[in-house]
């Protein structure tokens, strides 16, 4: 039997568990509580502040990351489930100092208002474009329909994903900051 944070003989042990996984290409090893959410571990223990808590109940999409190739809500994922996995957060989608085509396209379309929803929107868009480089408008709407943007940039997101798809098809996946900062 493999136990995680549980002792057979007694209750209320809540022992820390050591969890190893890869995040943004780097091997990490952290001690987590059995009841901790992946969201809190990524944010508080690993300092990945792009992972945001909006609703904490699967309804807003601001906490999503790509884990083993799947877009998942980290607010509804136990941290112990990360064991042996590969996780990609916004911090890892482009090399240091560069921006991903999706980020560039979001800037080009003036999509950002407060930007709180951006990490989730970008990860959901990347998840879509990785599988489907040339999505239709309906496919884009479907891919982003779990991401709530309180500022209401939805229509610009659609334009941005189309533009990002164009950049990527042209072979331009990463951009220098000098190419985008205005």
């Amino acid at each position, binding site marked *: *039997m*493999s*136990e*995680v*944070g*549980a*002792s*057979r003989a007694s*209750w*209320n*042990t*809540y022992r820390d*568990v050591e969890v190893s996984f890869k995040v943004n290409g780097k091997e990490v090893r952290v001690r987590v*509580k*059995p*009841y901790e959410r992946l969201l809190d571990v990524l944010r508080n223990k690993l300092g990945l502040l792009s992972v945001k808590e909006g609703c*904490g*109940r*699967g*309804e807003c*999409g601001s906490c*999503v990351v790509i884990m083993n190739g*799947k*877009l*998942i*809500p980290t607010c*509804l*994922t*136990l941290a*112990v*489930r990360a064991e042996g996995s590969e996780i990609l957060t916004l911090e890892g989608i482009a090399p240091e100092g560069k921006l991903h085509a999706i980020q560039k396209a979001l800037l080009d379309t003036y999509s950002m208002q407060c930007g709180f929803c951006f990490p989730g929107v970008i990860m*959901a868009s990347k*998840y*879509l474009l990785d599988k489907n480089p040339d999505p239709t408008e309906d496919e884009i*709407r*479907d*891919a982003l*329909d*779990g*991401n709530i943007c309180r500022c209401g940039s939805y229509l610009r997101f659609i334009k941005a994903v189309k533009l990002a798809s164009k950049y990527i098809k042209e072979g331009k996946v990463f951009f220098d900051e000098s190419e985008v900062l205005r």
Partner: protein
Amino acid sequence: MFRFDVYVPKDLRDALEAFKIYGEELVPIAGGTDLLVLYRQGMVRFKALLDLWSLRNELSYVKLEGGLVKIGALTTIDELSSSELLKDKRFAGLRDACKTFASPFIRSVATVGGNVGAAHPLSDITITLLTYDASVKVRSLEGERVVPLKSFFLDKRKTVKRPDELITEVFFSEPPNNASSAFIKLDRKVGHGMGYVAVGVYAELDGDVIKDVRIAFDSMGRAFPERALMTENALRGMELSERNVDKVVREVLPKEMGRISDYRASAEYRLHLSQVLLKRALLGVGRRVRGE
């Protein structure tokens, strides 16, 4: 919110054995998209979770075997919707249910077994599985038993499953070629998932005649998905025409359906929607069977 332990079993046997140690304080978790929301709202209590994710290599599949369509309890909504088997028109309703299910990131973790285990009215896969007259396979250390899905629920969040039993599979007979299905949900916002009213319809046609039909709603009065048996009886043997469907939907369905009023919709509106959506679903199934 309270603290809890997590037990990660190495296989199904190990998972079942864990109940011997932890007893009823151990609660299974699959995708967690139902359970962890309830946990956060303070609506469930447990001392430890049994993490079923490690059983995915055993219990995630969609396959046809000996005339039965079998779906492993840990199959995610994503996996169900992309399964080759369900591409066929006979399973169109299951595809509808997957397509309108929550959002992409919920679909990648929510499971079929969890949808049944949630025992909640707004359980889209469960509603559709009822129209296929599916059965649920549950396992404990004492062995396996099979419970028809239509007698699985006792109340909202209450099922006939004992706390030491795990759902391992749902299965149903392979439908004949003259069959198809549909699922329609009316929702305030796409992606949120919980509709006001949801209906599933399965029908077998003989030419234009309804040879067999099964209808399930999110609720018929009690707070879990159920079949509309009187309406099914009235339709069986009838010609599938707009006029006939209209008549049955107006005259028979209200006799057996009880709807509630709450902050989201009134009972009258819910009944009206149920009638309209059922009609739409039935006529849609007709078109699907005929390949239109």
